[in-house]
């Protein structure tokens, strides 16, 4: 059992500190994953907050069929898609609500320590949303293909194809910018 699952179990038993542990452990990764849906880090943070709020208020049961991280990211994806479906339009938010919101650089700096990953993540911004998500899940969050397929609600074959096309698109983008990386 991973730490996330045990923390969530303790939270369900009434330990509020365990919820803080979950936030500390999964906030940055979930926010960056959800950033792939919106291209806005503030909206990604808002989505991440909604995901954790859902965990806190509704307390959905965790069956343990997958890792807690996979389960959490799947909840995040469904939540974001539902919210985007409801909004349907760009929401204009007041700047007053964003005084305490982190900027993207802070999150990236905390979460992505490897310099190569930073450069690679920067190059991913121009990619399609699905390419960005699959690359982030596989290469930044180190999910396997099966877990990525579960999170993205796709088959493993679709994830393989998506990952192949995402790498080709990223390589093309990097070549345009003069970036050379032998592993690509």
């Amino acid at each position: 059992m991973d730490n996330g699952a045990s923390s969530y179990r303790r939270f369900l038993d009434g330990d509020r500190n365990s919820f803080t542990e979950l936030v500390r452990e999964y906030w940055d990764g979930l926010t960056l994953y959800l950033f792939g849906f919106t291209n806005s880090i503030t909206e990604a943070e808002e989505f991440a907050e909604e995901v954790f709020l859902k965990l806190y208020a509704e307390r959905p049961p965790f069956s343990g069929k997958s890792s807690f991280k996979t389960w959490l990211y799947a909840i995040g994806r469904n939540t974001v898609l539902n919210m985007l479906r409801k909004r349907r339009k760009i929401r204009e938010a007041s700047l007053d609500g964003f005084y305490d919101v982190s900027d993207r650089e802070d999150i990236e700096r905390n979460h992505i320590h490897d310099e190569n990953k930073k450069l690679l993540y920067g190059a991913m911004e121009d990619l399609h949303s699905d390419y960005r998500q699959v690359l982030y899940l596989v290469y930044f969050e180190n999910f396997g293909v099966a877990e990525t397929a579960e999170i993205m609600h796709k088959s493993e074959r679709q994830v393989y194809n998506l990952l192949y096309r995402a790498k080709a698109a990223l390589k093309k983008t990097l070549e345009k910018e003069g970036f050379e990386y032998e592993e690509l």
Partner: protein
Amino acid sequence: MRSYEEISNRIMERGDKLIESAKVRAAKIRHTSYAVSGMCAAAIAGIGVWHIASYVKKPDDGFKGSGIVSATETITENTSSAEITTALTTTFPKATAAAKTTKMTTDRKNSDTTSAVPAVTTAAVQTTSAKTSTVHVTTSGNNANETAIPESPAKTTTADDPTPVTTTVRPVSPDGNGNGNSGNSGEESVRITTSVHIEDGPTTTSASINETSTETITTAKSGPQMGDGGYVPPTSTTTTSLQDVFRANPSYITLNEVRYEKQAEVSAESIGSYLHRVDVHIMYIRENIRSVMKAYLIEGVDEEEAVAVQLKDTDEYYLFRNTSYKKDEAE
């Protein structure tokens, strides 16, 4: 930059508010559902009662008279010569213009009106007399509608034995046309037919007829009628009302499985509050006529001891006393 603790606290604060509002909403829904379900139950019960009420059978407002009650009684008639008052000797079947009138005396226990009708003399020798009479009792509405139809003369004939008389009691419509059931109109009619089979042959006029009937009727008798040589059975028609039958005969009611028997008439001033409708059983010539009337309390009298019953379609109240009532037991 917000710390994770701040983010966590913010989420938990929002979550607590969300949970609290959900609880309030659930409580509101629960309370509303209780109220709505109660109203629905009351509405369903009301509709049910209203629906069932149409199927509740209304109390019978009088006997239906679906069947004809027949009773046979034997009337012993006095045939002694002492009671013969008039004897005329004529030849039968020819009726003569000089027919004389025989005075007939009818002796009844509860007779109201007796009219003597002309009698056509017939046979020469008289020994016994037998009477054939058809009694029509027609009751309509409030008052006794007494009708005397001297259409056929009473005929006396020789008979050695007491003649059996068949009395038929049947309800007729208030208009007296004999249509039968009265339904729930509250107006009852009774047709009583008494017939005696008469043998043909030389007859003599009879002097007096004693009937032991206990009916309260108005009787009009007619003598023999001679047409074109044929013989027409004599009939007498009597009409009386249910009210008269009620007044003249013992009656009883049953309240809460207690039998109350009719006593004297009571004044309207002593009548108390209305109780409910009761079936009044009038014992009339060994028959039981049932009629629905209203029962009332009597001022200063315990309901278990006696009640008052208003005679239908009248302002008369009659005392019905519980015969098994004992004051000591009630106290």
